[in-house]
């Protein structure tokens, strides 16, 4: 049968069109299914939490049981501090490991690193909390912001390492050669050309890791522990939004429930703001392609 005959044959065309419709609608359905939970969570959290939001919520400490009002100021600051400590641990280690795996991928060690980060990304976060408990809390003798931040940092490493590696691998080899051929050393080439070209993607990976760390509860339960007051220093237990939300949500008091919703709303909002700020600050003048 020649091509012309096939086209003339109506049934082929109809069958092809139906197949196309079916597959396309499946794609639409999947796309909607992917977006609906996010939108639903966002609106539900806003609806539940917004009413409990007021100035007190951002400026005051939690009120004692039975008293009305109070806020989560210490938990908001605590989460920012914990995520900062986590970033200080996770970003350098993650990015440098990603560079190693991508740029020096011939060595056996880099294959080991790749395998181990994959395994690490599958380790439940509570196990990482136990690890931080064993490594930092027990030797120090008490719960602390350092221990919580450390646990979050470990959680961030695999995400950052893998995205850094993937993004660096997308940088065309010819750019590396162009830089080397100008008499630029390999490490300067890596920093000034390869990292810079891949920066947008790497930052996306870092933001994902930060967002995930900001929302983690389990690894903080026995590292940062939680605190109903301001922490004097980073080697003391510290409050955090997820733990505070958890504590309030399982309590029997109605106004605590409302505050937990408000906390959830603030947590989403903080992650959103951090995303926006980092994007603005690291914006590249020229987008590649």
């Amino acid at each position, binding site marked *: 049968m020649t091509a012309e005959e096939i086209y003339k044959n109506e049934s082929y065309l109809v069958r092809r069109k139906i197949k196309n419709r079916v597959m396309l609608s499946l794609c639409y359905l999947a796309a909607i299914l992917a977006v609906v939970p996010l939108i639903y969570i966002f609106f539900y959290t806003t609806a539940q939490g917004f009413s409990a939001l007021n100035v007190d919520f951002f400026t005051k400490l939690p009120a004692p049981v039975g008293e009305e009002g109070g806020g989560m100021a210490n938990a908001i600051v605590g989460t920012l501090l914990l995520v900062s400590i986590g970033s200080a641990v996770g970003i350098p280690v993650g990015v440098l490991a990603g560079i190693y795996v991508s740029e020096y991928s*011939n060595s056996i060690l880099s294959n080991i690193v790749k395998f181990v980060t994959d395994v690490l990304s599958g380790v439940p976060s509570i196990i990482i909390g136990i690890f931080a408990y064993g490594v930092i809390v027990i030797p120090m003798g008490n719960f602390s912001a350092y221990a919580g931040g450390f646990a979050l940092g470990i959680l961030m490493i695999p995400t950052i390492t893998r995205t850094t590696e993937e993004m660096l691998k997308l940088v*065309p080899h*010819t*750019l*590396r*050669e*162009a*830089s*080397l*051929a*100008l*008499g*630029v*050393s390999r490490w*300067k*080439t890596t920093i*000034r*050309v390869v990292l*810079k*070209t891949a*920066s947008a993607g790497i930052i996306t990976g870092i933001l994902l890791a930060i967002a995930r760390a900001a929302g983690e509860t389990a690894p903080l339960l026995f590292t940062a522990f939680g605190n109903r007051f301001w922490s004097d220093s980073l080697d003391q237990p510290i409050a955090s939004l997820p733990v505070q939300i958890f504590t309030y949500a399982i309590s029997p008091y109605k106004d605590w429930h409302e505050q937990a919703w408000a906390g959830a709303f603030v947590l989403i909002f903080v992650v959103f703001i951090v995303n926006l700020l980092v994007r603005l600050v690291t914006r*590249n*003048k*020229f987008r*590649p*392609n």
Partner: protein
Amino acid sequence: MTEVQENTINEEVIEIGQKELSKNAIITNNLTVSFSGRPAIKNINCKIKRGTVTAIIGPSGCGKSTFLRALNYMHELTPKSEVTGEIIILGKDIRQYEMTDLRKKVGMVFQKANPFPTMSIYDNVISGLIFNKRYKRNYLDEKVQKCLEQAGLWSEVKNRLNDSAMSLSGGQQQRLCIARTIAVNPEIILMDEPTSALDPMSTLKVEELIYNLKSNYTIVIVTHNMQQAARVSDNTAFFFLGDLIEYSKTQKVFTNPDEKLTEEYVTGKFG
């Protein structure tokens, strides 16, 4: 011959003779490059005079690019590659150079124009300088203008130096890459099929540029385009299956070659 191999590098250099060294920009002795144990070029001996344009021609896979890339040690990045024999660049064995110094002396222009996509036209020209050191602004301004003028690109881009390098056309990008290469003051420029991705007008411009650069630089150009080799080069080397078959004056290679194989290739019987 075994005695020669046992000698140190320095003694071999002396053996070649001081006069030869100063006359030639590039000398290779028994240069062999292998990938995973299989030689891509075998025992290449050639001398490339200073201030000349040398074209390297031959069918695909004959080792033209391999030879070119050996001259500024680009094989370093290729896993399982091995370079044996001797390469003497500007009178000094390649192994005696600091790698970054060697590549500043021996610039390279690639087949596909590869400006840095996150940088402006201005920054691209001086990238080789600013990646290594800090310079005064007016020195850089002058440098950018001079290099772009030399690359024949100044009049086209002088009003948009801060635009992205990716906003240029393919031919302009390739000339930008040439400007970037000459900004680090090389003495030798290696070109790996610099016009194979360009339209005829852009090709013409790059060829004119090569002609103009000849007085200041030694140029080695790999090309698939036989007419181009005939137009721009003084000498031509014909590679076939990893061997250097013939190497002499361009006119002789194209009109009256010594080897039957060369004649068949340049007249289009194969390749």
